[in-house]
């Protein structure tokens, strides 16, 4: 059963204020990922403080980097169930976990950050993981 929307609203805002587009329905997910071009980071948001409490500020730090994905989108696990289910179908070889992050380039997952790679890590560590991937996969030479 989804958490109280009022409880998660600040967690949604913590991501959307970074410029991430929130996808709350399967149709919105398909519109964003269906014919995805260039680089895109999909952030699977989560209530759990064990990991999400570091994932969101880690994302914020990473998006201050000089190289970032062309688009950032987000779905909220345990809240927008249809959207999350649909989003996970785009990276079905990866088992579901939340929070998690998928970096896509031209529709292919090129980097994935699982929950276990966030747990116990500082936001700075999470950001370092992401920015290394941004440098590798989101530069001008690879993402037009």
């Amino acid at each position, binding site marked *: 059963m989804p958490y109280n929307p009022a409880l998660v609203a600040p*967690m949604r805002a*913590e991501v959307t204020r970074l410029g991430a587009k929130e996808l709350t329905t399967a149709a919105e997910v398909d519109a964003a990922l269906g014919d995805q071009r260039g680089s895109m980071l999909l952030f699977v948001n989560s209530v759990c*403080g*064990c990991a999400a409490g*570091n994932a969101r500020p880690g994302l914020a730090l990473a998006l201050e980097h000089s190289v970032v994905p062309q688009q950032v989108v987000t779905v909220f696990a345990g809240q927008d169930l249809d959207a999350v289910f649909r989003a996970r179908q785009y990276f079905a070889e990866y088992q579901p976990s939340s929070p998690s992050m998928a970096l896509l380039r031209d529709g292919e997952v090129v980097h994935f950050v699982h929950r*276990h790679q966030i747990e116990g*890590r500082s936001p700075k560590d999470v950001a370092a993981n992401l920015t290394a991937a941004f440098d590798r996969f989101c530069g001008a030479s690879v993402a037009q």
Partner: protein
Amino acid sequence: MSGHVFHQGHAELHGITVVVETNGSRTYVGRYDSQDEQGVHMLDVGIHEETAAESKDEYIKRSAKFGIRSDHKHLIVPASEVARVTRLGEVFS
């Protein structure tokens, strides 16, 4: 809400994805919930049998890369069987 933890008062590993190695042929990967006289309580747990074609290290490495294929929603690893508990993120990341 940054850094907010909903699980105050729980064990240090509560909510953390761990590898539980045993004295027997099984290895468990999943989220650590708690530990009591029964053993280690885990959630969303994948199990590897040493007899499987895939080695234990390969299984753990695959779990680290692609996530954990959950075989059990909740499982207790008997205390007498637990040899070592390690964070998955520290084994392979």
